C-alpha cells in the first residue's frame, strides 16, 4: 500500500498531463488513488487521496458524497421528570457521508446560495427541508442543526471545508478522511471549476465503498438470508456452549 499509493498518484499525474487538452478551453481533471475502498474486519478508517489538474483560472471545489439515506431526527423533552423522545422530523436524501474541500475560505464568495445548494457545495447546502408540510421555520432549523451536529460528531460530515493543496500552480491534491464506521455504498466524487459566479467545468467520478472478505460475506448472508443466518448463529453458540462445558469437565 505504501509503495502503491505514491505510484498511483504519480500515474495520475502522468495521465492527467497526457489528457490535458492543448486548447485554451478551461478544463479540470482529477483521479482518485483508490477507486475501491475495502472495509475488512481490521478496517480502522482510511484517507482517500485525489489529485487533479486545472486548466484555466478559477476556484476549485471537490466533494465526496455517500449514498443518500432517510434520516429521522428526534428531540427529547421532559415528561414527569424523565427525558424521552417526544418530537421528530424526517429528512429524505441526507448523504450518509459528505466531505468537501475548496480553494477559497468561504463558499459564499464562489456563487449565490441557490447555486451552491443545487451543486451540494458546503454544509449550508445540506439543509434539506423535512418531510411533510412543516411551517415552523425555527423548529425546522433546530432539527437541521441537530442533524448537522450528529453527523459531525460521528465524523460523517466535516466541521469545516478541507483545503486544496496546490502542488504547483495548477496541480492539486485533496485528502478526505473516511472513519472506521463509514457507511458502505456507491460514493460520488465531484470536482468543480468555478469562475465568475458559475460552474465552468464539472467532473464526476464514482467510488465504491464496500465490505470485502469475511465482513462482506457476513453482512450479505445476514441481510439476504436472515433466517438461516440466525440459525447458523444459534448453532455456533450451541457448539461454543457445549465446547466450554466439555473443557470445564476435563479440568
Amino acid at each position: 500500500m505504501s509503495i502503491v499509493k505514491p505510484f498511483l498518484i504519480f500515474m495520475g499525474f502522468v495521465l492527467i498531463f497526457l489528457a490535458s487538452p492543448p486548447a485554451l478551453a478551461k478544463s479540470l481533471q482529477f483521479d482518485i488513488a483508490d477507486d475501491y475502498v475495502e472495509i475488512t474486519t481490521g478496517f480502522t478508517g482510511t484517507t482517500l487521496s485525489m489529485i487533479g489538474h486545472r486548466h484555466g483560472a478559477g476556484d476549485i471545489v471537490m466533494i465526496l458524497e455517500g449514498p443518500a439515506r432517510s434520516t429521522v431526527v428526534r428531540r427529547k423533552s421532559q415528561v414527569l421528570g424523565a427525558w424521552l423522545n417526544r418530537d421528530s422530523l424526517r429528512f429524505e436524501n441526507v448523504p450518509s457521508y459528505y466531505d468537501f474541500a475548496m480553494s477559497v475560505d468561504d463558499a459564499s464568495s464562489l456563487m449565490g446560495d441557490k447555486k451552491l445548494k443545487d451543486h451540494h457545495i458546503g454544509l449550508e447546502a445540506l439543509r434539506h427541508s423535512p418531510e411533510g408540510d412543516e411551517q415552523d421555520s425555527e423548529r425546522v432549523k433546530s432539527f437541521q442543526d441537530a442533524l448537522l451536529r450528529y453527523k459531525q460528531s460521528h465524523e460523517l460530515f466535516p466541521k469545516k471545508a478541507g483545503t486544496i493543496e496546490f502542488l504547483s500552480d495548477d496541480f492539486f491534491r485533496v485528502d478526505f478522511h473516511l472513519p472506521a464506521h463509514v457507511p458502505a455504498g456507491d460514493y460520488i466524487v465531484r470536482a468543480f471549476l468555478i469562475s465568475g459566479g458559475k460552474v465552468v467545468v464539472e467532473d464526476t467520478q464514482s467510488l465504491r465503498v464496500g465490505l470485502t472478505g469475511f465482513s462482506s460475506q457476513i453482512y450479505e448472508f445476514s441481510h439476504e438470508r436472515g433466517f438461516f443466518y440466525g440459525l447458523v448463529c444459534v448453532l455456533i453458540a450451541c457448539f461454543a456452549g457445549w465446547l466450554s462445558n466439555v473443557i470445564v469437565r476435563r479440568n
Partner: protein
Amino acid sequence: MQVYLPIAEMAVSAETVFVLSAFVGLLSGIFGVGGGFLTTPFLIFFGVAPPVAVGTQACQLVASSVAGSLGHFRRGNVDLKMGFVMVIGGAIGSVVGIFIFKLLRHIGQIDFAISFMYIILLGGIGALMLVETVMSVSKKKDGVRREFNETKISPFILSLPYKMRFPRSKLYVSALVPGGIGFIGGVLASVLGIGGGFLIVPAMIYILGIPPLLVAGTALFQVVFTTAAATIMHAWMNHTVDIVLGLVLILGGVIGAQIGVSFARYFKGQTARVTLAIIIMAVCIKMVIDLFVAPSELFSAEILR
C-alpha cells in the same frame, strides 16, 4: 486490536469487549446468574445500537445457557416435560417480544423502553434480594436443595384449567402456569436480550411450586430455546445479530465464568447475594440518573435503510 463488526457497522476494541464480557462472566460464575442484564447496557454504553446489543446478547445467552444446562441435564435435574411446556410459551413470547420491539423502534421509544424496563426489573429484583437476605439472616434456612417444594401454591393457580401431570416435579398443575412463565421469559429475551432467570426462577418456585432441585436446570433448559428463538427472530426480522461481536462476548463470558466458578468457593452465600444485589441496584440507579438528568444533547438521529 480493533475489530470491525459487520452488522453493527462499527469498529470496536476487541480487548475492551472481551474484558467486559469476562467481567460479566465472572459475576455469573460467582453468583449463578446469566448476566445479560449487565452486558446489554454496557454494549449500549460503548455505542453499539440498542437493537444490535439486544439481538447479539440473545445469541451469547444461547451459548452460556447451553453450557449451564448440560451439567444439570447430566445430573438429571431437568424436568423435561415441564421444560417443553415452558418452551412453547417461550417461543410464542419471543415472537410477541419481537413485534413489541419493532413497534417501539418504529415510534422511536426503544431506548426509553429498554431503560424503563431495566429500571423496573433491576430495582425490583435488587430490592427483593436485599429484603430476602435480611429476612433469611433471622430465619436461618438449611442450604440443601430439596426434592419437595414446601411453598403454598395459591388457590387461584390451582383452579386454572388445562391441568397436566408433571411426574418429575410431582406436580399436577395447569399447563398455562409454566407456559405463562415461559412466555414472559420469551418476551424478555426478545425485548431486553436477557434470559430473565432472575424473574423466571422465583416465579417457578413461588408460583409454580417446582422442587428447588429442578429449578436451575429446568429454567436454563427453557432459556436455551427462548434465546435461540429470539436470536433467530432478531436475525430474520431486524438483521441485528452480530456474530463477530457475539463470538467475542461468548469467549469472554466462558473464560470469565470459569474464573468466577473457582472464585465462588471464597464467597459465602449471604455475602454473594448482597454483593450481587448491590451491583444490580448500582446499574439501576445509574439508569435512573441517565433518564432524569438533562442530557447534554437533546437530539438524536437514526439513519434508516
